[in-house]
């Protein structure tokens, strides 16, 4: 038709083919449905609600200011709850991200379009990592900062140690994003994905009691050490060890997920 502009073909080939479109779709499953609202309320309720319980747990302070002990408790609980419940939240939110697409048939449909298999996996990792970190880490952290500054005054928690501890929490949650997505490429049932991932998370409360050095390279120690970074600024051993160990495990999970999905037959 005269004046009509021709459609411009997508040029990306190789491992990024279709990535942009998939990322847009993945964000859409969060933000073009009510899922975002559910997670916003859920994680404010769970993490910041827990903090409120701790804060008001023994009644209001007579002096108007709370003790160091109360502040410590708040920080401890934030990282413990954020780590354990947040980890479970990550697993629950992502348990079906790959499995559902494989079993429903939508993955097979997508892979008849010019979409690279690696782009499929990367889109699941990136979009879900950004989104769950926003809802499970960033939003509750803003809540904590508001709560702490109102209760203990400006300067609490100190910015740099707190940011470092937040980085540790982010690494922890990223590992569970990659681990859950990897499991989604390996097994064919959501229950198997969440059961295995939650089992691994819970094992963090058992295995270190049997063999403590495991904490120096596994993600299990991260949320135990993070409060100490904020409160004391010191660690039983260099914090980079479990951070580096967890990052290596995360990269391995991503590599396995891509490798496995490249070989998936539909």
């Amino acid at each position, binding site marked *: 038709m005269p004046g009509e502009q021709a459609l411009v073909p*997508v040029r990306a080939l190789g491992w990024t083919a279709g990535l942009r479109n998939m990322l847009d779709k993945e964000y859409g*499953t969060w933000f073009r449905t009510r899922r975002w609202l559910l997670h916003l309320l859920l994680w404010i309720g769970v993490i910041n609600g827990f903090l409120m319980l701790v804060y008001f747990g023994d009644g209001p302070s007579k002096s108007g200011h709370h003790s160091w002990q109360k502040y410590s408790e708040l920080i401890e609980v934030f990282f413990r709850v954020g780590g354990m419940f947040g980890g479970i939240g990550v697993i629950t939110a992502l348990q079906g991200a790959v499995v559902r697409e494989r079993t429903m048939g939508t993955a*097979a449909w997508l*892979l*008849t379009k010019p979409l690279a298999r690696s782009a499929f996996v990367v889109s699941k990792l990136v979009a879900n990592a950004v989104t769950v970190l926003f809802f499970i880490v960033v939003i509750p952290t803003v809540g904590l900062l508001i709560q702490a500054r109102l209760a203990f005054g400006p300067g609490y928690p100190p910015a740099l140690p707190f940011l470092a501890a937040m980085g540790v929490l982010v690494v922890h949650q990223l590992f569970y994003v990659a681990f859950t997505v990897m499991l989604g490429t390996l097994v064919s049932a959501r229950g198997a994905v969440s059961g295995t991932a939650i089992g691994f998370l819970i094992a963090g409360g058992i295995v270190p009691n049997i063999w403590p050095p495991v904490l120096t390279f596994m993600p299990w120690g991260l949320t135990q050490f993070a409060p100490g970074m904020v409160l004391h600024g010191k660690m039983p051993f260099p914090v980079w060890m479990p951070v580096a160990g967890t990052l290596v495990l995360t990269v391995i999970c991503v590599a396995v997920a891509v490798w496995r999905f490249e070989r998936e*037959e539909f």
Partner: protein
Amino acid sequence: MTNPDLAIRTSGLTKTYKGVEAVRGIDLEVPRNTIFGFLGPNGAGKTTTIKLLLGLAKPTAGGAEVFGQDIGRDTLEIRRRVGYLAQDPRYYDHMTARETLRFTARFFYQGPGEGIERRIGETLELVGLADKADRPIKGFSGGERQRLGIAQAQINQPDLLILDEPAASLDPMGRRDVLAVMANLREHTTIFYSTHILEDVQRVSDIVAIMHLGRLIAQAPIGELLAGQSGEVVFVVTLKGEGAEAQARVSGLPWVTGLEEQRQNGTAQWHVRVSDAEAAEHELLRAILASERVTVTAFGRQRFDLEEVFMRIVEEADNAR
């Protein structure tokens, strides 16, 4: 060697799942701009073959080319030029038909947005879903889902449209609509579709291939297939009168390979098998009418029903095992 006239060419394409050969060394040739019916009973290996062509599964042995490109090495390039409708198409239920097509189109085109929306509108019109474009597909009927399936397969105006049992789950009206859409698209694209509904094949296909137990047991233009197999042609003659003399004369012709007679109510029907169809068309009727004792009331080449042909070929393949 790549043949530019072929949309699909497979050579010794084989797929084995846990020791079971789903596809056994098939050699298939699909010419461009044809409607190619890929027939076979359930479990024949049709869907597996399609999955191999699309890169959803990897061949155990052999290979295939789509538009001269290798299905293993060039799968992304192939998928740019192909539209596919699955046997049981699944989409995201939270999306509307328009959103589904927009999402699909974005795998092929980066813009302009206005052009993409226009293409989506045209495609929705083509499949008759324009009035349901903005409803979530969760509530779509089987026929509507199938039409959406054709729309998403057609959104990139592909050079090759692969349809896996496009009419299997549809009522007669839905089937008629789908066949009409296929007929409309034949001018611009090659259509390769699998089915077990023989009536549909007879209505729209140019060429037919038959799969059975993972093997390709026949491939021919539909007219040739319906006229008879493997060079053997049968002429049907209906006649009245005393036919013994004519029968003797016909049986003596060098290209007649067999003659069967059925009698009913004073009328005889002969099935004359011949090895040279041209000679038979020219001389058979004359040879019969040379006898003044018979009157021929009907004469012509036997047209087989596709179901008959299909059943015979499948049975022959079973007997040959």
